[in-house]
């Protein structure tokens, strides 16, 4: 209920093309999430614009919530990096790869559980405000009853589900499609 808030949040502005100057130091330094060690996985994919062209200057941030016992995850590595957080950039063709702890199911808050997922923040030149999305995993049986997925039109639900690409390396593929036929579901914030 923002209406009764005392202060108005500062406006967003684009991260621009030069964000690596200030943000590169934390790229690819991903620390395991606090709770629930379910092994590590890799998410690989591409960020694509309206013309299907790979976005070479995008940054993605993945947030993996901890289990019930860790609110919020307070784990940090020796360098002060927080568990469950992963920042990656795209290459010249728009490809990204993030190695993260496999997320575990987390409570919705009313007794129901959410299927394992991560929150994803998408930044790039051309985006005046970052985009908010979620990524789920195709081989998780809990997806069928996930309350957030249930609320998304069936024909668009698949845009939030990463496909298992390599079982041995637990590698998943998930693309971010900014616009067009297969446009990824983005959330209001």
């Amino acid at each position, binding site marked *: 209920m923002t209406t009764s*808030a005392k202060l108005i949040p*500062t406006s967003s502005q684009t991260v621009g093309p030069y964000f690596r*100057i200030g943000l590169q130091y934390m790229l690819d330094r991903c620390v395991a999430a606090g709770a629930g060690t379910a092994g590590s996985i890799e998410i690989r994919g591409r960020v694509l*614009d309206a013309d299907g062209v790979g976005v070479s200057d995008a940054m993605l941030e993945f*947030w993996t919530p901890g289990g019930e016992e860790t609110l919020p995850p307070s784990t940090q590595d020796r360098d002060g990096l927080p568990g469950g957080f992963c920042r990656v950039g795209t290459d010249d063709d728009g490809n990204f790869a993030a190695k993260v702890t496999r997320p575990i199911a987390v409570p919705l808050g009313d007794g129901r559980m959410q299927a394992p997922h991560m929150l994803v923040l998408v930044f790039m030149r051309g985006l005046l405000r970052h985009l908010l999305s*979620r990524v789920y995993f195709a081989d998780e049986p809990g997806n069928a009853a996930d309350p957030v997925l249930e609320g998304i039109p069936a024909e668009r639900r698949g845009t939030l589900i990463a496909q298992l690409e390599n079982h041995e390396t637990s590698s998943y593929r998930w693309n971010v499609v*900014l616009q067009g036929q297969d446009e990824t579901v983005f959330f209001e914030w």
Partner: protein
Amino acid sequence: MAMERVEGGNLIDLSPVQPAIPGTQPAYHYPPYVSSIARSPRMPLVLLPKTLTEKTGPVFGHNLVRKNDNDLTAQHEGDPLGERIFVHGRVFDEDGRPVRSALVEIWQANAAGRYRHKVDGHDAPLDPNFTGAGRVLTDANGYYFFKTIKPGAYPWGNHYNAWRPAHIHFSLFGSGILSRLVTQMYFPGDPLQPLDPIFNSVPDEAARKRLISRLDMDRTEPDYALAFAWDIVLRGRGDTPFEEARR
């Protein structure tokens, strides 16, 4: 608000993440900023319940920031060229409470308007004594401080004779991932601001003006450096499970 009573008697708020106050945030699709056309979604955004995932977020440790990471003039052998300035302010949540230990990351062009980045082709000199990157964690009062060089304006390819007003890029993490903010701080009295589509992408004039820092003569150090003050408000009202647990 979608409140549900669960076992144990605690009220669980499952209301959706609220959209921004109209006019205070830029639209994704803003044609005057040409790069937004092919990079903005066209489908309506979907409401997301505010769950544990959205209420929590990364907590950064003090080892991430070294002494002098907030002094962009002391990262090389010599002094960088340009106008030495202080940039400082406080970070608040929507209730006006200071956000402590907020990670503030900044990057900027040098005094000549050139970024130390491979894709910046502007024909202005690089400064061997200036990288243009800094970071700091806010203190218990939500206060941050940087010492740097005033960045120069620079041309860009958005339209004919397009120039960006002087600005410093800011990236912030507060409490909870939804408090995440990337923005730009501008300087007072810059005539390029009304001509800049990125600045103008914020519809509300008052919100736009809040992106402009204030000349701060109280903090200006005589014979040394001008100071600019800029306060930042992050989304969130301290309603994280962490806060609730402490009550």
